């Protein structure tokens, strides 16, 4: 559509632009993060050069130098949760419900992380087995989400008494996470990528994030690192372990009900994929090579190679007798990164401890077992607390556990419960005006229980 400006419009535009330039930083900062903005936004505006203060990096002496610059503070908050995956979602809801100002920053446009954007739809480790009895260890915020999904037709399966490891629909999950975050009163920043931290001496005071609005800061009393990759604690210089792990890409197949399983089996295809609440759709896991997810070149290569091999494979399936009607519904919006950085916490929870079911005085959650066939294991608060760095707690798949146990702790149910615990603990630290490592454990445990969590 062609649009020509008349003179009046042009004048109006120019004056609006001048106004914008006058308090540009504040205005932009205020617009993000508020759910509804009623500020009059001109349909179009001409931006003359130099209306915004600019601090471009400078090429000087063959080096790229980032000059010192002031940053706009987009928000000041009590608890700041970085990353809106299962862990971050639960942390934000728990903290806000505990009554502190809570802010959540997510680099993509939706919540759920690997669970929704990674299309990893099966919530493993929701239960454990004690004396032959099925015990639900996934309770609290995460369980509430799944329970609410049961009231939507076709949103979740296997979320019922006697069942374990529910599978949810990604769109329903995103929607319900939005609802719960909104109800809890969490201030949200989507499309904001946390790139650095704000330090005052050795103390963490907030984060710096990038967005379409440029680089801005959020100040917080306590930060919960739920980025999965420990982006925040790494930037803050906390001790951590860096691991390589398999990186895959999940895809979904459509029309699976119209495939002939017996015929496909003859061709050596054991299963088409995992169950989904949607009819005739399956999600297909992919392990992929073990590599470094902190290397952008690797991520780029894998994203493209995985997509190509998925494409080829689905074409192959369509040529296989029995699989002609299948089609590729979707590849996951998010690459399937499993493990990268693990915090060095005040307690490293080990595989041996978990198998023994070792009890801790500071238990904040209970881990569930694959297929609910073994005892659950208490998870101590120390696995979330950095050794030295203050004002930060880790949650989800980047907490302090050993190489073997992380294979269990990275599963969605455990991320939901450690996230819940981290959010509640952060809120308590704010309320008690102390460092997270100093909070009274019995108070934390009481708060968690009051919020429906399971501590054994």
């Amino acid at each position, binding site marked *: 559509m062609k649009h020509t400006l008349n003179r009046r419009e042009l004048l109006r535009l120019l004056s609006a632009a001048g106004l914008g330039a006058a308090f540009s930083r504040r205005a932009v900062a205020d617009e993000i993060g508020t759910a509804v903005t009623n500020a009059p936004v001109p349909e179009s505006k001409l931006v003359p050069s130099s209306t915004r203060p600019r601090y471009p990096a400078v090429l000087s002496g063959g080096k790229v130098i980032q000059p010192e610059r002031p940053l706009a503070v987009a928000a000041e908050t009590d608890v700041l949760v970085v990353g809106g995956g299962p862990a971050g979602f639960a942390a934000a809801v728990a903290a806000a419900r505990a009554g502190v100002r809570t802010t959540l920053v997510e680099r993509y446009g939706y919540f759920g992380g690997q669970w929704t954007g990674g299309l*990893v739809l*099966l919530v*493993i480790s929701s239960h454990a*087995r004690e004396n032959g009895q099925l015990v639900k260890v996934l309770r609290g915020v995460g369980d509430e989400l799944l329970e609410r999904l049961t009231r939507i037709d076709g949103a979740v399966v296997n979320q019922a008494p006697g069942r374990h490891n529910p599978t949810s629909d990604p769109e329903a999950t995103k929607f319900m996470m939005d609802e719960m975050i909104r109800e809890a009163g969490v201030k949200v920043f989507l499309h904001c990528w946390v790139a650095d931290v704000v330090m005052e001496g050795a103390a963490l005071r907030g984060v710096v994030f990038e967005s379409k609005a440029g680089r801005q800061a959020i100040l917080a009393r306590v930060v919960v690192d739920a980025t999965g990759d420990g982006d925040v604690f790494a930037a803050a210089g906390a001790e951590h372990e860096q691991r390589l792990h398999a990186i895959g890409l999940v895809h979904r197949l459509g029309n699976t009900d119209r495939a002939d399983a017996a015929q496909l089996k003859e061709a050596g295809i*054991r*299963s088409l*994929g*995992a169950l989904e609440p949607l009819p005739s759709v399956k999600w*297909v*896991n*992919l*392990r*992929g090579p073990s590599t470094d997810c902190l290397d952008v070149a690797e991520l780029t290569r894998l994203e493209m190679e995985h997509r190509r*091999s998925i494409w080829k*494979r689905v074409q*192959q399936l369509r040529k296989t007798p029995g699989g002609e009607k299948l089609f590729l519904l979707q590849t996951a919006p998010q690459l399937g990164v499993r493990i990268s950085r693990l915090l060095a916490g005040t307690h490293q929870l*080990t*595989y*041996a401890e978990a*198998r*023994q*079911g070792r009890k801790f005085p500071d238990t904040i959650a209970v881990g569930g*077992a*694959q*297929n*609910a*066939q*073994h*005892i659950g294991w208490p998870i101590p608060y120390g696995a979330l607390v950095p050794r030295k760095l203050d004002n930060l707690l880790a949650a989800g798949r980047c907490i302090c556990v050993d190489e*073997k*146990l992380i*294979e*269990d702790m990275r*599963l969605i149910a455990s991320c939901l419960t450690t996230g819940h615990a981290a959010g509640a603990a952060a809120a308590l630290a704010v309320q008690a005006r102390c460092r997270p490592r100093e909070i009274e454990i019995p108070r934390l445990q009481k708060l968690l229980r009051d919020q429906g969590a399971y501590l054994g």
Partner: protein
Amino acid sequence: MNHACDENPSRRRWRQAGRWLALAAALCLAWPLQTGSWTSVILPALSPHIAAGATLAARSAGIIGLLALPVSILILVFPRWFCRHACPVGLLQEQIEKLRRSPAPPWRRAPLLGRWMLLATLGGACLGYPFFLWLDPLALFNGFVNAWRAPLTGAALLAGIGLPLLLLLDLLLPRLWCQRVCPLGALQELLALFRRRLRPASRCETASEAETASAKGWTLARRGFLAAGAGAAGALGLGLGRERDPLPLRPPGSLGEDRFAGVCVRCGNCAQACPSRIVRPMLRGDLAGLLTPTLSFERDYCREDCHQCGRVCPSGAIARSSLQEKLRQVIGPARVDLDVCLLANGRECTACIQRCPFRAIALKTTQDGFATEPAVDLARCVGCGACEAVCPTRPARAIRVTARPGRLPVQPIPSASVPEREPTPNTPSIKS
């Protein structure tokens, strides 16, 4: 244990006191206060019968075999010394007999079953299968005590049923066991015959002994030869028949399946000593293997820091080996059923890989890259069952230890692939 000879009462009283003491000692040995104590091996190992049969069958003598030496000397010097002075089973039988209203006459007319069985045992032993070794009274006694030490289950009780059966038999047919059936008694009689060659019969010989002694040596030798030959032939037959599938899983270091059921005396020590409680008396399969120890990895596995079962085995059915040696003894290879395996079906499960103390399971990606499977490295897998115990699929486990081929001896895996031991030496058991 015939008291036909006169014995002055005070001597007899002393002897009785000694026998009660022996019973108490036997109980203490069979039930050491400390669980996992190796001393439970002593009682059954005292029996020259077990020592002879097992040594012949295994074709090697261990240090444990020496335990039978003192008793062997004593029974060589004093006829039926063991029955008269030490046997706990005999003493118990005498007590049981007191329950009878009328003291029935001692059993005299039955054939000398024990002797033929002993000869068959020794003959079979030469070919690796000592048939009736398990009838040893000390093994039966030990098995009975062990049955009560284990958590009470039907199988445990069944494993200890030998002694109660004997006592019942004694109530119905008094002295039949002691005089005609007991192979340890028969061994002593044979030795007595042998001794008589060396010096004249002692005053205290029983009528039955005198009777047999008078039998012509020649006949005896011929019959003995026949019995032993029958035993050997039977052993051969049994050994050949032992190729069937599925073979039971045996404790690490066990003899080949062709000999195991013969050499094992069912004393129950291995099951009792196992800290993971994976050794169970076998109830299925053929009669020959009844109550022999077999392994179940349903709840726990054969720990990498333990070699108890071999240390308490009195007969050498399970080899006595150092921990380092034991870590190389293969119970059997673990195998994966890919149709059941969660990982192979796209699920994020690596339970077996995480658990394996020997790092013997690796991830293998199929050619098209879309399936990942656990692959067992047979050069490293000893079949400890940790993977099976932890495997979360039900009802069938996706990974299972299968028995090694029966007639093969233990195949030691090369020492190069012995694991770096787990960082935690005392690996906790898997609780479910």
